């Protein structure tokens, strides 16, 4: 990764969020709340379809930052994250990030940089999740 600058875009993530995917996620993260794996249960609660849980949201932010920042990076923070709407099954999902700040910081005694990123989840014209995250990279 070239040294980032404020305003740089992080390499975005895109995926189709199928119900099958949410069921795999539920088996892995142990959140078996019916609204995340059962369209009918989600609709009874007022959502249009089954929707991802907060742990899935955190994990997509984890992927976004670390797959961009590389193997020497450390994930420092996910948040604050605001949930505005449902991240719905059956729709494509894009997760994007923009660098907002660079701060010199040491980790494990090594010099490096804390990189603050503003994150947005997009499904069609909706932005169901927005938030911030921080990843640390060693000085090259």
């Amino acid at each position: 990764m070239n040294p980032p600058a404020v305003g740089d875009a992080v390499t975005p993530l895109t995926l189709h969020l199928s119900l099958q995917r949410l069921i795999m996620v539920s088996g892995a993260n142990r959140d078996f709340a019916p609204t995340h794996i059962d369209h009918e249960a989600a609709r009874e609660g007022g959502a249009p379809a089954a929707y991802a849980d907060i742990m899935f949201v955190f994990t997509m932010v984890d992927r976004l930052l670390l797959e961009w920042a590389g193997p020497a990076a450390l994930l420092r923070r996910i948040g604050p994250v605001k949930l505005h709407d449902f991240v719905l099954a059956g729709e494509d999902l894009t997760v994007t990030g923009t660098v907002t700040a660079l701060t010199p910081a040491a980790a494990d005694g090594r010099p490096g940089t804390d990189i603050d990123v503003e994150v947005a989840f997009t499904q069609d014209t909706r932005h169901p999740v927005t938030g911030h995250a921080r990843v640390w990279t060693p000085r090259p």
Partner: protein
Amino acid sequence: MTAGEIVARTVGAEEISESAIRRYVEAHEMEWPLYSDAEAARAHGHDTVIAPWSMLLTAAMPAYWAPGQEPLRPGALPPFMWTKLDLPGSEMVTTSVDLEFLEPLRVGDRIETTYRIVRTTPKTTRVGEGVYVDFELEFHRQDGTLVAVERTSIYSYTPFRSEP
């Protein structure tokens, strides 16, 4: 419900295992090498693969059921403590979540969580009458090391009745 008071303490259902990490990586298609490639993890100072940072809440989650307990009811929610804290009101929404990671999650770590109330702010909103509650959760592994802190705000409320 007093500010500063520890209101709950829980322990994750199991130690973090390589198989749990593998299933997590698979389900979320995580390409970051330290989660799946032990050589890459060793090259960055770890004994073997580390768990995804975002797997924290899974590692911290108690068991849904254990031998000797009542059968799980259909529709059971994850056994986090939010629904068991006797907060005022009948409904609850999470308004903001913030996770700060201090140490990587390692194979063999077992995560204990303490829940502390930092602040309560009564407020009437358009949906009802209730209270904003700011929590701080500390996650420790079994050697006592603090590995992460979560700051979560929820709104616990009684909805306004719709007019007959």
